[in-house]
């Protein structure tokens, strides 16, 4: 019992600024990186810290539902990537030297900075009519929303585009949970995320099969 009580202050520390920083970094990685191993890892970390952020605005049990939904979403994405391949032949890195950013990645870094600035500006008090349940949460949620929209706009592949939709929905879910913590709404929002993950998974597999067929034809 005492062990559990010791965990609470640790959790409250991690659900503050470390969670916000992690969420922003992982969302930025989702936009910039093309490596599916990085994408899947970033998504896992993102959902973990978003779960922690939920503890600031929802009852722990309800936050647990959201975290469970996040785990389900991540598992769906993980298995679909595993099925479609971690390094598909069509997605070859631009740069031959590791850790050197190609032109596309440099553009994305620039776009991420701009989107993050917009998110930061929107999070300033009085800019948007949201009740500020927690400044951390509002800031992280708006960053996720902006970066999710950016990812949707930049990505062409169903997996990355889908990750953009998921990031956007996660950000909105954080914002909206402060406004409407009703269990039914939280549940349906979680169901929407799972349904989106399933459709992304399906579309990724369809895309992979069609790419394979066109490669065989060539």
């Amino acid at each position, binding site marked *: 019992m005492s062990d559990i009580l010791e965990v609470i202050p640790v959790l409250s520390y991690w659900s503050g600024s470390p969670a916000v920083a992690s969420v922003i970094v992982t969302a930025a990685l989702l936009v910039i990186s093309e490596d599916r191993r990085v994408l899947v890892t970033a998504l896992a970390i993102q959902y973990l810290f978003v779960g922690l952020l939920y503890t600031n605005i929802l009852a722990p049990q309800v936050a647990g539902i959201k975290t469970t939904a996040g785990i389900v979403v991540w598992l769906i994405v993980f298995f679909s990537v595993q099925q479609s391949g971690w390094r598909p032949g069509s997605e070859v890195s631009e740069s031959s030297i590791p850790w050197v950013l190609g032109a596309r990645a440099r553009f994305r870094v620039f776009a991420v900075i701009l989107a993050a600035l917009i998110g930061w500006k929107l999070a300033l008090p009085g800019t948007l*009519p949201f009740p500020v349940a927690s400044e951390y949460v509002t800031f992280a949620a708006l960053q996720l929303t902006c970066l999710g*929209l950016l990812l*949707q706009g930049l990505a*062409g592949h*169903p997996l990355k*585009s*889908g990750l*953009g*939709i998921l990031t*956007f*929905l996660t950000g*909105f879910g954080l914002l*909206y949970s402060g*406004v*409407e913590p*009703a*269990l*039914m*709404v939280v*549940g*349906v*929002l979680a*169901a*929407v995320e799972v*349904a*989106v993950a*399933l*459709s992304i998974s*399906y*579309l990724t597999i*369809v*895309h992979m*099969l*069609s790419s394979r*067929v066109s490669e065989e034809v060539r």
Partner: protein
Amino acid sequence: MSFPLLLMGLPLVTGVLVYNLRRWLWLQVIVAVGTVLVLIALVQLETLDQLVVVFGRDITLHSSSAVLGRSFTFGEADRPILVFVFVAVLLYFLAVGVVRGPSLFLPVGLGMLPLMEATIFVQPFLYAALFLALIAAVAAFILSNRDYAGTDGAMRYLAFVSMGVPFILLAGWQLEVHQINPDDMLPLKRATWMLGVGFLVILAVAPFHSWVALVSRKAPPLSAAFVIGVVQAVVLIFLIDTLTQFDWLRANTQFFLALRLGGVAMAVVGAAFTFAQRSLGGLMGYTALIDWGATLVVLGLRTPDSIAVASMMIVVRVLGLVVWGVGAGVLMDVFEDDYDKLRSCARNYPFATTAVVVGGLSLSALPLLAGFPGRWELFRMLSADHIGFSIVLILAGVSAWWGYVRVLPILFEWSEPQTESSYFVAGWERWGTIGFVTLGVVTLLCVGLAPKVLTPFVQPMLDNLAKLLV
């Protein structure tokens, strides 16, 4: 027993059954069509909230049930709307029986039915937006498959719906804020523009229209027709429900102006691209965009007549699209979507070609076809005060007709010297397709010649709002 949950649960259960019957299409169709017929019969029940005896057992069908603090309520006004949705879905299920649709169409279609019903039942009704997001996610399974591997349309559709839904949900929250402090009008203003933006995004108003063209080009024709015809009709019903519920929104002339302008924007974009299309799907997509634009314009006129005309347009669009979907499904299975590959297809597939042409022309409101009376009535209503809008819509209609005029010589091309008697080669099309197309084309012609035959079905659909707008 909860009646709304019964209506939502039945298609879900049979959807699972139908999924497991994938090897037997005819059995799938029988179960799916049977389910929808049972739903139509159930909706006619007048004995809600009363004790009835069924097979010797006392049962009370409750019209409302609470789920986790929110309720699903079946109202009298929902009856005709549900009948419309069920009949529309029934037509598509029958169409799958006559044309090789996506293998998941029937189970996914049955799975989408409870979500469509939930958008009508859920209270507070703005939560319907959440179910629209679920519908968009589920629709991905019928908008792309191994034969139609382009995933862009499904992704774009999902992305736009996901973007629009938050606006509607946040509008609901602003309304709650207003209810707490009725003197503060700011939340009401915010709710108005949030609802406006949310609906314009979900209804594919330009510049959020790109998914319509992508879906119609890259998805299986029947699925594209289903999403553009039926699912979008459910979105419009949700909009009309919103207008019915909120007096302040009905009194807001700017909201209706936004609807009119949005509709005209759709028509302009459609007109700009329809006539130059090089694929049957693209031609249908932009034509449908014009038709949806016309519907928004008529709704934006805010008169009791406009509701009747909008209802007529929605119903007729479903008919036109299902006929188009059957024809295009047959042709695209054999020839692909590109005009170059469709040359002379009428020779072997005269009925499917006729379906594509007549369904498409009905959608583009050609005189004597079903789409025309509604459009004509709209022109009549616009002629008094909005002559500019009618000119734009007429030009858009001409652009769509021109698109079909361009494709006719390609579809009916005589590629080699043929005598008139030997041009059509019978035996390539199935009897089911021939029967469905014949019935569909005759219906489109009959409705075009005598539109009043639809009045008994259309009138009750949105009667409530018509009364409110008097």
